[in-house]
């Protein structure tokens, strides 16, 4: 983008705000154009769109009663895939396909909601630490150091065990244990932004801290946070999967991880009931891979130094 386009032409109808928005739209357009040229990124995006659509239309495709053992009493148990049951049935006669469809909803919900929590806590801490500095910065960074060092999965396991099995607790657990990484990256970015000319100019012109953070800092750290959020979703989904497998999942909202746990405890491995444990695992891999590909592509596009690595 050229510097000239930032100048407000005297007498034109453009306000400084509309100019700024036009510039941001153009920058977003450039990122999107680079994203579209990126083969891996587009593959990831298509997978994500497909899974999201599947998760959204699930209630139209299958009734929730399919998840209940009582409502599946008439079905054959351990049936291999057939015309009636596309992905077979489990030890209670429940359709694996229905579990797979509903599992996608929980796994995606937990992944996205936990990531939103990570981003909110992480960017808040990062902006405050980087912008205010001084002892506030030292305390917040010390705290994030501690959280970085405490092994993440055991902490999540202990917290989830303490709080009890519900998807909201799992979202909370993943959120409060994973924010430090986003906080550190945001802080580093804020520190470098603070030195930039346009921030100094705003300060010299008497802008308040609030104005500087909202108008200059946040819009500039947002893309980086977006890239990191995209990379945090797969970690959140994998963590939920592991917690659910360890028996800490929510049985009323079965995720893909929960369904793997049920398959394992029901003895699907020894019975060779591959139709019970393969679909959920493949679903997890597809979603995790898709988010990772999109996130890495975004990182690459936003950080020119990484382009060499392709």
């Amino acid at each position, binding site marked *: 983008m050229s510097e000239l386009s930032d100048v407000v032409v005297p007498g034109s109808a453009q306000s400084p705000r509309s100019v700024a928005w036009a510039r941001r739209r153009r920058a977003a357009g450039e990122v999107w154009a680079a994203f579209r040229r990126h083969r891996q990124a587009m593959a990831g995006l298509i997978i994500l769109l497909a899974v999201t659509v599947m998760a959204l239309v699930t209630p139209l495709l299958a009734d929730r009663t399919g998840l209940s053992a009582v409502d599946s009493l008439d079905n054959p148990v351990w049936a291999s895939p057939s015309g009636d049951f596309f992905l077979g049935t489990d030890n209670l006669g429940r359709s694996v396909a229905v579990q797979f469809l509903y599992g996608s909803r929980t796994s995606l919900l937990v992944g996205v909601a936990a990531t939103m929590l990570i981003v909110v806590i992480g960017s808040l801490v990062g902006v405050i630490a980087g912008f205010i500095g001084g002892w506030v910065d030292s305390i917040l960074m010390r705290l994030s*150091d*501690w959280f970085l*060092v*405490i*092994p993440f*999965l*055991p*902490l999540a*396991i*202990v917290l989830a*065990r*303490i709080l009890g099995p519900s998807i909201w607790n799992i979202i909370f657990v993943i959120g409060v244990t994973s924010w430090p990484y986003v906080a550190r990256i945001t802080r580093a970015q804020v520190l470098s932004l603070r030195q930039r000319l346009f921030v100094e100019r705003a300060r010299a012109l008497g802008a308040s801290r609030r104005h500087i953070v909202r108008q200059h800092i946040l819009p500039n750290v947002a893309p980086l946070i977006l890239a990191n959020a995209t990379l945090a979703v*797969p970690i959140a989904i*994998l963590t939920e*999967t*592991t917690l659910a*497998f*360890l*028996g*800490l999942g929510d049985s009323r909202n079965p995720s893909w*991880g929960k369904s*793997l746990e049920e*398959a*394992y405890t029901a003895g699907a*491995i*020894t019975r*060779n009931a*591959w139709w019970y*444990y*393969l679909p*959920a*695992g493949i679903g*997890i*891999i597809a979603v*995790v*891979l898709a988010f*990772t*590909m999109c996130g890495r592509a975004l990182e690459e596009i936003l950080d020119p130094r990484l382009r*060499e*690595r392709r």
Partner: protein
Amino acid sequence: MNPRFVVAKVTGAIGTLAFVLAFNFFLFRVVDDNPVDNLFRGRNLSPTQIASLEERFGVGDPLALQFVKYVRQTLQGDLGLSIKSSRPVSDVIMDSLWPTVWLVGTATALSMVIGTLLGIHAAWKRGTVTDSSATAFSMITYSMPDFWMAMVLLAAFAINLRWFPTGGFEDAGSTATGLSAFLDQAHHMALPAITLTLGYIGEYMILMRASMLDTVSEDYLQLARAKGLRDTEVRRRHAVPNALLPLVSLSALNFGYVLSGAIAVEAIYSWPGLGRATFNALEGPDFPVLQGLFLLFSASVIVANLLADLLNGYLDPRVRLS
């Protein structure tokens, strides 16, 4: 190395350990404010019995005093008693320590070597089929839940092909000693070790590839080529040693996760290590055991972090001088 750098890192690590110790106490105190109440609920104990139990568990004291006692006992290696087995938690941990170190340590070392070699190769052949298939392989194994891979490999190689036993540390009732015992244990360890190795490779491969590509564009590599060195020489003597630097940090850090790295995988293969001990302690739950394990897991990560920092400072002057 600069003594001030070492002192700063060591004090930092000690401070973090102190934080973890306090965190560990208060975290579990929130869950279980009075173990006597929770353990003996509905047993109709007389007030004197309750008082004596409360004294034994130390829950009658004010919180600050409990904390001081807890710190003193922990420093003496006393982690309390398991609720399930009434054995000292430190014994439970010592029994499971060796199998985990053996299994996860082997897998970590193997994946480190294979992943690094794969990364070097992929970067050197950038853009070829070798590169894209190695990258795809790493990305896919990296995206897999490790316990799912354990389930699939178990079904394929232990249940169907019967190449490996389905779980455990050695054959049930085995009295073998010496070499035959070692071979039996290695046979039991093969499948879990392969699972973990496959799960870990991706991280090393991806990082090594990226690090190599960063190095490839450096001036000193151009110079090495301009001197007329053969391609393999340039790679072996100039590219690889410099690209290895970030890998050293990652490896040192990952050794901190050896103890806590295989919770679900150990549970699937019934491997009698710390992971399965954690899994078993979750049922119940056996809070003293969980608390002891959590402390051990955190301490090992902190120590590994310290070693990684010191190693990095030793290898890279820019780190210790800044």
